């Protein structure tokens, strides 16, 4: 997740990573990780990196930080498909979950 300062708004973080904020701490699925203090309007990126096991890179001259995905056991922690949301090639928003009820072959390709 790209940041322009070493902190992030909880809603943006939740939208990108799926971690939500509860009184118990940062939660995803059944797992909750306690945080040192209740979340305010901003969360410190270094704190999130440490608590959730995410790499945090900085390119300070460019004013950019990047929080990577947390270190997990397996890439898929559940067989439930993540709700992929991407624009289609005409720029229209698309959510994978809109295809519930059909079988889906998700196919990654590239022009290169």
């Amino acid at each position, binding site marked *: *997740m*790209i940041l322009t300062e070493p902190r992030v708004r909880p809603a943006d973080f939740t939208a990108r990573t799926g971690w939500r904020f509860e009184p118990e701490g940062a939660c995803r699925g059944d797992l909750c990780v306690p945080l040192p203090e209740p979340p305010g309007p901003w969360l410190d990126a270094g704190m999130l990196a440490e608590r959730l*096991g*995410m*790499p*945090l*890179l900085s*390119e300070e*001259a*460019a004013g*950019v930080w*990047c*929080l*990577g*995905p*947390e*270190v*997990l*056991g*397996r*890439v*898929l*922690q*559940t*067989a*439930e*498909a*993540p709700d*992929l949301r*991407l*624009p*289609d*090639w005409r*720029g229209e928003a*698309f959510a*994978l*979950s809109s*295809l*519930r*009820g*059909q*079988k*889906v*072959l*998700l*196919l*990654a*390709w*590239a*022009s*290169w």
Partner: protein
Amino acid sequence: MWQELREELHPKGLEVVTVALDLKGVETAGRWIEAASPRHPSLIDREHRVDELFGIVNVPSGVWIDESGTIVRPAEPAFPKRAAFRDAPLPADLDPYLAEVLREARKIRVEPEKYVAALADWVEHGAGSRYALAPDEVMRRSGERGGDRSRAAAHFELAQHLWRDGREAEAVPHFREARRLQPDNWTYKRQAWVLVSRFQAPSDVMEGDWLSDVRAIGAENYYPRLDM
């Protein structure tokens, strides 16, 4: 490439969703999609989100998702048919480097017949298909996400962001680091190489190149054998 198969299997309950991994987005992927005029959703993934979410490391890769939104096969090589270039003679006036690349690419194992037959079986039999895997097996096969893989994802995301922002010199070390940390992620490497060389040839900017990296592992190991 998938249009024909999609039209055949769509009436039986399958939808195809293609995702183009491309830092330059529709600028480079668009003309391919337009030419195919697909009737299925054709998405643009400028940030390689599916790499992170589904563990995709090479293209083309397919993931099967059932009616309830459960993955029944995680990412694996997915070819609908044998690419025409594999059998056609190479034009005599072809760029010599490209000819070498294509000769190497022909040694890569692809298994379209097996894949398409399995897909059709699943579409017909659903959970009863022997190709539909149980959740534990799906998770097991999805691969490990240890520290290196996680850091590779962060370096790659940062590299793409900087590159898009015109900060190419700052981006390059992060592309290199992503390759070092996760050398088997071809989507990271190829995306980086193609930014500086159309044929993903050696450059003094990026480390490695398609031909050398493929030869280093052996073309037969470019895709894992289908486990089905």
